[in-house]
């Protein structure tokens, strides 16, 4: 019990004094996960839109696969990306292994399914009468797609925020692709795993608190978005 209390006290101290190492780890985490989120959004929103708006063979199967991948273990994605970008892999020449760029790629792959799936659900949630209304008002195919995407904007934003939540909190990809190199690829989650193993609880707790604060910010953002979305 004492250990926890001392840990928390020291942790708060580390945060308040803006300990350079804590700050560096937190900023790197945010940079990598935000980049991955942005990249995943750029891919998922148009791709999700395509899947929603166009009828093609195997659409149902594809959506089921995407939904299954919502819960793909992070270490499985880590392994897959590792095999792809390791020196002997097909993309080994890019030199991405154990770099932040490699971690961004890994997290992007990890969160694309959940983001794309939720984008499809968001577009599907738009009243069917809306699309009839737009068509009857003289919208071209493109004009009506733009309006429907706009109509689903808050739900799509929720999908993006949830994707970010999964990226910042995952440990498998960061560990396997980043390698947890101090000052280079060490992020919040991998740091907590390592420091806890070394008995350095105060540092772990400080990073844990920061992660929770980020989670809190995500929840607050989500709530603002959903409240605005509600009629």
């Amino acid at each position: 019990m004492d250990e926890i209390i001392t840990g928390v006290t020291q942790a708060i101290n580390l945060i308040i004094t803006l300990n350079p190492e804590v700050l560096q780890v937190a900023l790197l985490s945010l940079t990598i996960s935000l980049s991955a989120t942005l990249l995943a959004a750029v891919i998922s929103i148009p791709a999700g839109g395509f899947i929603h708006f166009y009828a093609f063979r195997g659409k149902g199967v594809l959506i089921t696969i995407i939904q299954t991948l919502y819960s793909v273990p992070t270490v499985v994605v880590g392994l897959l990306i590792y095999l792809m970008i390791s020196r002997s892999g097909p993309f080994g020449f890019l030199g991405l292994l154990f770099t932040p760029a490699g971690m961004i790629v890994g997290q992007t792959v990890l969160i694309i399914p959940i983001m794309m799936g939720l984008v499809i659900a968001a577009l599907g949630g738009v009243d069917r009468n809306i699309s009839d209304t737009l068509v009857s008002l003289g919208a071209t195919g493109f004009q009506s797609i733009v309006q429907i995407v706009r109509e689903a904007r808050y739900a799509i934003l929720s999908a993006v925020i949830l994707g970010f939540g999964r990226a910042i909190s995952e440990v498998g990809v960061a560990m396997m692709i980043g390698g947890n190199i101090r000052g280079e690829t060490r992020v919040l989650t991998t740091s907590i795993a390592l420091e806890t193993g070394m008995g350095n609880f105060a540092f772990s707790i400080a990073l844990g608190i920061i992660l929770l604060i980020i989670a809190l910010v995500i929840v607050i953002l989500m709530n603002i978005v959903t409240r605005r979305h509600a009629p």
Partner: protein
Amino acid sequence: MIRIEGVTKRFGNTEVLKKTDLEIRRGEIFTLIGPSGSGKTTLLRLIDLLETPTSGRIVFDGTDTAVPDAEKITFRRRMGMVFQKPAVLNTTVAENVAFGLKFRGVDRAQSAQRVKSALEQVGLLGFEERRAVTLSGGEMQRVAIARAIVTGPEVLLLDEPTANLDPVSSAIIEDLLIRINSGQHTTIILATHDMIQGQRLAHRIGVIMDGRLAQAGTLHEIFYQPMGKEVARFVGIDTVLTGVVVTNERGHATVALGNASFEVVTPCGPGVTVTLYIRPEEVTLSLPEPGVPRTSARNRIAGTITRMVPLGPFIRVTVDCGMPITALITARSCGELGLASGMTVVAGVKASAIHVRADAG
């Protein structure tokens, strides 16, 4: 303006619209009446090219509309449609009304002005900046109408536009439609299950029953000369009787129905089986009196009152005269005559007030 030629529509194995031929004339108000689920909405959606006919064709202003999907927009942009359940987009009222103009590339200044005028017409001036999703059902319906008329369509299609509205709002909408029709010569096609509304607005009426256009014609044709029992019942003709013509003297015929007989006006000769349609407001009721009756009504049949249903200032009285005959009389007459169930009364109908049709086959 719009010609519907042999159009049918199937969804899977269900034929929701049976072979339909119909011509909508430029500048008229045409109402489609029929029970819910009879196919009115499908016909409107076909006209707005939101659905493709399974067979037959739709000709818009002399041009066949069977063109690739991307080209249908040229026809659609000459029409406006108001759906039964208005769908508004999650933005301001003004933006909702402006969509059609935006899609047509109308510039902002002109668009703002036209939106304002459309909102004024539907009585929603001042609602511009309100969020459309927070409006009441009736207000949304009016936004939907403003949105459809703002582009100045040649044809305005409306699916049950007043189904969710209170009587005052309904009256506003009806007045508006009449103004749009007479002022801008907009052709209006309106679907309604409300027979009275159909009657109030229409130049011509089409009756749709069970996916089939049962009859199309003027108000008089539909309400006084129905082409079948289903139409008759739907337009409020409660008394439909079948009999055989016994004699016919220069158009003045006698029709036998069991023990009773009716005098009617018809060219049908003796031996022809005919159906008689009698509107309830054409039937008079009187108390039986001895001697020669003092009335010009050719048909007088005594019977017993079996049912009395109050309808506002009127009472619908059903009299069993060997066959049921229904009369619509004022509550005041009913009170003065002291009518009650079980009483014997005489039902009177003028020969000329009975619509006669020879039965097919």
